[in-house]
């Protein structure tokens, strides 16, 4: 029996570029360069490794996002995923985490799945809660924030490094997993992979396909409201000295002045 893996990937503004808000206080996704969230590359990588171990597996990458989000899907396909689903609808603009989890859960159910793999957090929203929300909606175990993961005989096992302890986790499939950037370097797409990706199927679904009403998502369906977004004033230029042999002492002097010593 084939192992059906769905990897959720997000298209995000490039963190090294200039990120900002649009007039309606949503993240500006039109005016900036975007890419596959680096943290989701780790999810694709673990999916590929799990699929390698399984007798027969199929990896679907899923994204919810604007037209350009196809770039993120292409990247994941060129790494080796088999097919892609792009959920796109004008009414999705401004959807919050709770709304996004609804769309992801409906799409995952429609696609069919044994295992969902997500990144630990998106690099723009950085909430790190969607995998938990998707698990809640699907009613399946959440096995999240894993630094190590393996699947065998319908059971997923992994290591979760928490604040106060490192835990070994175990759950039966179907399940929702998320992996951290400690789970193992993601591979680069090969030239062959990039060429092959061009021929892989990318399906497009809209809200109607998922039987979701427009008012359940989008800015109006959002359960949170952003009142304002202000650019933080640049930090005032500090004092910079060149060490001429007394740099440590000068720094100590500064710390005394600030009452840290």
């Amino acid at each position, binding site marked *: 029996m084939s192992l059906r893996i769905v990897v959720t990937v997000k298209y995000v503004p490039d*963190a090294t570029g200039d990120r*900002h*808000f649009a007039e309606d*206080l949503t993240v500006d996704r039109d005016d900036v360069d975007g890419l596959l969230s680096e943290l989701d590359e780790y999810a694709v990588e673990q999916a590929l490794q799990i699929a390698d171990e399984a007798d027969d597996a199929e990896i679907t990458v899923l994204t919810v996002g604007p037209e350009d989000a196809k770039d993120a899907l292409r990247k994941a396909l060129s790494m080796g995923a088999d097919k892609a689903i792009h959920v796109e609808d004008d009414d999705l603009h401004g959807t919050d985490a*709770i709304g996004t*989890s609804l769309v992801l859960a409906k799409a995952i159910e429609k696609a069919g799945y044994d295992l969902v793999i997500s990144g630990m957090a998106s690099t*723009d929203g*950085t*909430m*790190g*809660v969607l995998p*938990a*929300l998707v698990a*809640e909606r699907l*009613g*399946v*175990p*959440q*096995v*999240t*924030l894993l*630094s190590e993961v393996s699947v065998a005989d319908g059971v997923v*096992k992994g290591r979760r*490094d*928490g*604040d106060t*302890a*490192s*835990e*070994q*986790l175990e*759950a039966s499939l179907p399940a929702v997993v998320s992996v951290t950037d*400690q789970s193992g370097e993601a591979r680069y797409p090969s030239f062959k992979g990039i060429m092959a990706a061009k021929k892989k199927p990318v399906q497009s679904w809209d809200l109607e396909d998922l039987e979701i009403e427009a008012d359940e998502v989008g800015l109006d369906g959002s*359960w*949170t*409201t*952003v*009142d304002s*977004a*202000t*650019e*933080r004033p640049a*930090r005032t230029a*500090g*004092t*910079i*000295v*060149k*060490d001429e*042999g007394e*740099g*440590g*002492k000068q*720094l*100590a002097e500064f*710390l*005394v002045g*600030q009452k*840290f*010593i």
Partner: protein
Amino acid sequence: MAEVLVYVDHVDGAVRKPTLELLTLARRIGDPVAVALGAGAANTAATLAEHGAVKVLTDEAAEYADYLVVPKVDALQAAVEAVSAAGSLAAVLVPSSAEAKEIAARLALRIGSGVITDAVDVEADDKGPVATQSVFAASYSTKTRVSKGTPVITVKPNSAPVEAAPAAGTVEALSVTFSAQATGTKVTGRTPRESTGRPELTEAAIVVSGGRGVNGSENFSIIEALADSLGAAVGASRAAVDAGWYPHTNQVGQTGKSVSPQLYIANGISGAIQHRAGMQTSKTIVAVNKDAEAPIFDLVDYGVVGDLFEVVPQLTEEIKTRKG
């Protein structure tokens, strides 16, 4: 007055500092009712009472340790229902640890409420609590409200002072019926983190970090010596962690810990956006780097352009001398 649920982060009954900060914020909105779960939960009551908890709801069932996240969601949901039935619930405040964020999100979904994560401040307003968030690696600050249901807000460490505010802290047993999902993910093993004797990274008033410039695990003793002279926690950049020089638990940045201390000292760290995401809200920032062009210098209150192997030991000596 309305009540505010505060989820208690504790280790065997020892309340972690961010929870006490939550009590300070909760008191701005209403009467804090604390929820403490798992082994030692009842032992949290005295500390919580000292800091303003009018009530402490506890349940010490084994499920909280034996299964991941969901039993705690079930318990918080029971607490929400109990408090709402008896009076009015103004908000649920939860510390921004990785686990507590997951708990908060699932709870919000279940009770039909919006969720805000990683607030750095929470204020009362006629239309309900307003959360301040710091986004895009702290280059923007947003004010956000929950527009549906009871606001569920997770708050980062060091967002408010710990204040003494004695209250009754009456302990009540919370009655929890676990959901079918509660036992879905088994915790089959647990290795507690060994204590280094240094302050917890996210809670520390001072953090001293080392990056690729430290150039080897053996050299981290220089960073540790400076940290110890200041009673500080030790942090590391991802480059230092990936090189295996320091444990991942000490990583500061987007995929490590987010810190907001009074003083942050970056040594041999260039200041990449992902590192800045985890330390940019520090009150005072100091850097030692031999490259005058390193982006970290854009953030500093005080910077020394120089070799950390010269500057840091001299600084440590000077601190020791001055402290006598």
